């Protein structure tokens, strides 16, 4: 048994495909509102080379994959927009046409499995758009990242040497945050808001004021709730809303679904009462319109 164990232990590194590479394989993956964005790429190092762009196999005018070995790939699980350009969901090989030090062209080719020397010819299936190259602090290892995230996307960033290319990513939103004024009208007004415990006992009574501002249905407690401050009420079903919370800059950063659901009940077309339910479907508060 010991002998067998030793043999298998020796074989393990081969099983795992261990190999020391100049450009180790890396993956960047990010989910935004249910859309998964993944980049797989070999990551070359600068290795003391101070100038990488404009020379060697990266001379101006060359089509180059921002990685090494097999072409860098981008896979999106739903349609996205990159710098405003529609990218249908699938896997692509990623290329840059290195025009000059400040302007490159992003090329996404539908053939995702290409060696770095198999530069794709221009085709109708490709997505091509210009990108700006900014100067940045020196980055030793070629890196793709998403350092900025928003509820509707983020920034996809390439960095190597002193070159930095940032592209905005927009995902398909799962929810419409705004509500037309005509739809909002039925909910506007003040409600007596009673928080209840798990046994249904009222623990606190506040006022809950529903307004329509800037296209958003908004709710605010009086006295003010120190955590929520003001929330946007995002419609998830007829008369059901999930609260969305704002950061200090007034930008929505999270929708609390399924954490809290505001279930309105109507009388003669107008919202009359609210049941606030948590993710376990327990009632957390009951509210009734103040005439």
């Amino acid at each position, binding site marked *: 048994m010991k002998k067998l*164990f030793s043999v*298998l*232990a020796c074989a*393990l590194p081969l*099983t*795992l495909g261990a190999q020391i590479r100049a450009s180790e394989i890396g993956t960047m993956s990010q*989910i935004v509102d*249910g859309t*998964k964005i993944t980049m797989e790429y070999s990551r070359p190092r600068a290795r003391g080379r101070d100038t990488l762009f404009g020379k060697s196999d990266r001379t101006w005018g060359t089509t180059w994959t921002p990685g090494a070995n097999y072409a860098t790939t981008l896979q999106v*699980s*739903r349609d996205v927009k990159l710098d405003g350009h529609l990218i249908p969901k699938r896997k692509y090989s990623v290329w840059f046409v290195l025009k000059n030090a400040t302007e490159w062209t992003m090329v996404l080719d539908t053939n995702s499995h290409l060696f770095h020397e198999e530069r794709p010819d221009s085709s109708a299936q490709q997505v091509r758009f210009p990108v700006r190259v900014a100067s940045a602090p020196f980055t030793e290892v070629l890196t793709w990242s998403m350092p900025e995230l928003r509820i509707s996307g983020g920034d996809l960033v390439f960095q190597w040497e002193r070159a930095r290319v940032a592209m905005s990513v927009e995902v398909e939103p799962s929810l419409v945050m705004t509500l037309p004024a005509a739809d909002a009208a039925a909910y506007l007004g003040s409600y007596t808001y009673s928080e209840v415990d798990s046994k249904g006992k009222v623990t606190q009574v506040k006022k809950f004021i529903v307004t329509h501002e800037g296209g958003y249905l908004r709710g605010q407690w009086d006295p003010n709730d120190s955590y929520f401050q003001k929330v946007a009420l995002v419609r*998830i*079903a007829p008369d*059901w809303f*999930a609260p969305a919370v704002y950061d200090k800059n007034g930008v929505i950063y999270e929708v609390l*679904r*399924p954490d809290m*659901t505001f279930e309105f009940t109507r009388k003669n077309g107008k919202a009359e009462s609210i049941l606030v339910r*948590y*993710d*376990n*479907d*327990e009632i957390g508060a009951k509210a009734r319109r103040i005439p």
Partner: protein
Amino acid sequence: MRSHFTRRRFLAACSAVITASVLPKSVAWADVRTPHPKPRPGITGAHVLTKGDLKDKPELVALYDGVRLIPQIVDGIRCNCGCGNPPDLYSLLSCYEKSGMARECVVCQGQGKLAVRLHKEGKILEQIRVAIDAKFG
């Protein structure tokens, strides 16, 4: 110095490698919402945990009892808890059977409670699915 590469760790590593190599690619992309399952013909609540199985969770007994009464509904609902859909999970009903996650997971519990509540209010499976999708999807 004693090696930390024990037999147990070695077997665990082998297991992880084998699992990763046989894992279907679709599992890695399971974040995208899948359709609700079709309730299996003749499905019953016979495997839903009972009071005896829930001695450490008495507060959940009523919920499990409610789910047991409507297997044809709960078996037609996709679980949205994000557990990655393990191979033996067919529907939300699976979460309430054997070692299913509903014992611990508030999202599994919430979906079950919502299904039981809406069924009591007279809603049909399709309406319950819409409500579950709105809140948990």
